[in-house]
């Protein structure tokens, strides 16, 4: 066993290298590894959170779609109801209008007929008077025989 100062020299070199490793190598590598470990666990956590959020969104979406469908159906039925209503309304209005037009037309007709009859009657009365005048050769007092004339004209 040939011990000499090499023993001490080796010890000092050992201390120097350990110090160097402690100062310049170990902490840097440790930091890299720990950062990566953290990033990986963060990433995994984010992924599972994203998955959970996706599931939530999916179920929420279903609810929303259901609601929208229901609303759309409601709207549709409301609209068709309204349309029916409108058609009904329009129909009845049109009928009323038609009735009214018919009524006024028949009233007009009646009036015209009445007027025509009136005219005919007065003409007939005049004819009768003039005929009678001719027959009798004398003027008949219109006012005195008005009742009679009326009776006659009514017979036509």
């Amino acid at each position, binding site marked *: 066993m040939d011990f*000499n100062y090499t023993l001490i020299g080796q010890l000092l070199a050992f201390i120097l290298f*350990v110090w160097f490793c402690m100062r310049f190598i170990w902490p840097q590598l440790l930091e890299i590894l720990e950062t990566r470990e953290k990033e990986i666990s963060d990433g995994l956590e984010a992924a599972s959170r994203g998955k959970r959020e996706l599931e939530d969104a999916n179920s929420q979406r279903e609810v929303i779609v259901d609601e929208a469908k229901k609303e759309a159906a409601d709207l549709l039925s409301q609209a068709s109801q309204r349309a029916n209503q409108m058609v009904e309304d329009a129909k009845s209005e049109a009928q009323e209008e038609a009735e009214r037009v018919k009524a006024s037309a028949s009233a007009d007709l009646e009036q015209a007929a009445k007027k025509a009859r009136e005219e005919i009657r007065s003409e007939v009365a005049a004819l009768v008077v003039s005929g009678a005048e001719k027959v009798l050769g004398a003027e008949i007092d219109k006012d005195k025989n008005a009742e009679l004339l009326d009776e006659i004209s009514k017979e036509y």
Partner: protein
Amino acid sequence: MDYVPHISIIAAPNKIQMANKELNSTDYIQHHLQNLKFGECSDGRWRFADHHINIGEAHTEQKTTNTYTCDAENMGFNAIHVDTMGMSILLGSLFCFFFWRVAKNASVDKPSKTQNVVEYLFDFVRGVVNDNFQDKSNKLIGPLSFTIVCWVFLMNLMDLLPVDLVPWIANGFQSSTVYGPIHYFKVLPIADVNAPMGMALGIVILIHYYSIKKKGLGGFLGELTLQPLGKWAMPLNMLIEIPGFYAKQIALGLRLYGNLFAGEMIFILIALFFGAFFDSLYGAALGVFGILLSLAWAIFHVLIIALQAYVFMILTVVFLNQAHETH
């Protein structure tokens, strides 16, 4: 078996003392177990040991006047193994530089291939520390384990370089019989007992530091003296606890040293087969056998290289965790 180095004939004659002397197996092995030494000579000055460095006029003074000797064996503690220190600091710097570059350019989102490998290793060490170390607020244990496993692995890896390659290059591309520029160079720092024991010494200091910090001096000494049998059997307790406490710490360094030293030794022994490669057909056949043996041992040894780096790290973590635990 006699080792006959085939290039020894080319030896430059006058610069070298043992130029034409044939190396036998023992010399060859001893040559490979000798560190490049820089230490205190007999006159008190620090120089490279005799013949370890032969560049320029390194030892002319000694050669001409003989006023001092610089024998590697007489230096005792007052010496330093230049090759061990050089290789370990080189490999440690390589580790620091490489991981510093990766850590600096690391990105959270787009990791490069290199970063992936580094992160895998980092995560592995972090896992070991998390599983075996209770005090999560400790900022030292992670970098400590990481440095140990990487640095020791790199140092162990040097065992897979062919045993003669680096000494041969250092010796100026000459055989070990020739006194080239750098005559001795052990490329495997862990096969020098100072390197693993120096690291283990750091762990021993940390074990004592944390033990005293967490349990107090009384608590720490109490653990060594007052259990398992209570205070009336204190001598017996000490006899049980103290050797156990220190044996595991000494074994921490010696285990690593022993494993790698033995592995290196076997590579050196196998290398003896290559000695007569160019001399005869028999020598060539022996050389081929040696190559196959070397390959087989290298494949097995890769396991030990990685395993011992891991074992040193995990034992460090476990021992330091024990230092935190109060009974």
